[in-house]
């Protein structure tokens, strides 16, 4: 699984890194950073939670 964030769409709702801080991190402004786009199997569910709770549909997942 790969997870990506479109930084043009992210406006810092912060849901992803609050709900799944193993996959998503925050920059200084509170926008989403993804340190590792390759998601290990044990974190796939977490990545999905982040994706499903982004109000801007800024996160995408490729399986």
């Amino acid at each position, binding site marked *: 699984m790969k997870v990506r964030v479109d930084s043009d769409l992210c406006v810092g709702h*912060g849901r992803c890194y609050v709900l799944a801080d193993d996959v998503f991190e*925050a920059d*200084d*402004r*509170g926008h989403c950073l993804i340190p590792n786009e390759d998601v290990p199997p044990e974190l796939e569910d977490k990545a999905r939670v982040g994706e*499903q709770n982004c109000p*801007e549909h800024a996160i995408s997942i490729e399986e």
Partner: protein
Amino acid sequence: MSEVESVSETPEMPTGQFDLDPAKPQAIYDMLREHSPILRTELGGTMIARHEDVEFALRHAELFSSDMDAISIGNVRPLIPLQINPPEHVKYRRLLDPLFAPKQVALLENDVRKLSNQLIDDFIDTGECEFNSAFAIPLPCTVFLRLLGLPLEDLDLFLKFKDNIIRPETREPTEYERIQAETGQEIYAYFDKVLDEREQQPRDDMLTGFLEADVDGNRLSREDILDICYLFLLAGLDTVTASVGCMVSYLAQHPEQRQRLVDDPSQIPGAVEELLRWETPVPGVPRVVAEDVDLCGEHLEAGERITVLLGSANIDERGFPQPDNVDFERPANRHLAFGGGVHRCLGSHLARLELRVALEQLHERIPDYSIKPGEEPKYTMGIRAVDYLPLVFTPPS
């Protein structure tokens, strides 16, 4: 016959006859989406109700502008950053976002918890309270004054400022705008004086921070800082008051849901999100059409004032399966209670912190609260403050 039944018999609501019960807006939202997804009203401008149209309007600031033409609230210059359009908008958000990012607001948690407990201490022994004045108003207002470094004795003055702007006590339009404009001048003058004091004697507070801030190599002008403070005053007080009021009112009327949070406080963060979705305390945000555009089969003209109905989008089944089911464990909750797009509520993370901590302390200390028998909560129009919320509960023995 209730208002809702009377309207649902007619296929379309007559233009301008938009009557919303602020205690139970959900049924009206459902009807709007079904029958009049774009509704022109006399007082609220043009209502946009469907989830996809709301998302579209929020994400296209170039078509649906949040500038000064969108709403009159007593200010003489654009509020910063809300009424600044992209691309200039981002330079202010770059300065302000870090101050309100989750990591930063987390530093306030202990303070917010202590304050919540102090407010509860003041009424817990009596077994009852009027929740709005005892908790919902003082919590966010005190947090706000502390954050900006302003004296707590100015609380009543701030409440007067924000009430005069948000809900002036008149229905007469000229008088309405006169009160707003006069209060606006008082707000500018208040902050101008405090900023003079901070220039003389800098302190470790946000206002001093603004005086020393660097934006693209420049200092903020005095007017810039006033335009930020004006917005903070309007955005920071009423919204959290309304949100905690809406949530506690809902929970007081749904004891099985309240009990869930008492039995398992780990559900509180999910409850905050779900109640933000279901209640949407700030039901709509104002925009103005920047250039002619077609939306949902209707032609909208440049200059037309719009209300983007966040509350309606948040219960649209096209965005939320089983939208009427208030589920604290909803797996996908992309609610728009804090708006969306570039103007996403700057204070959303602070609001979430205050709401979570408030619910944690209330459910720990007065777990069996309910509406006082024979009474009912009263909601305000516009921002849905529950300005009368009589509660009873078992006092500690």
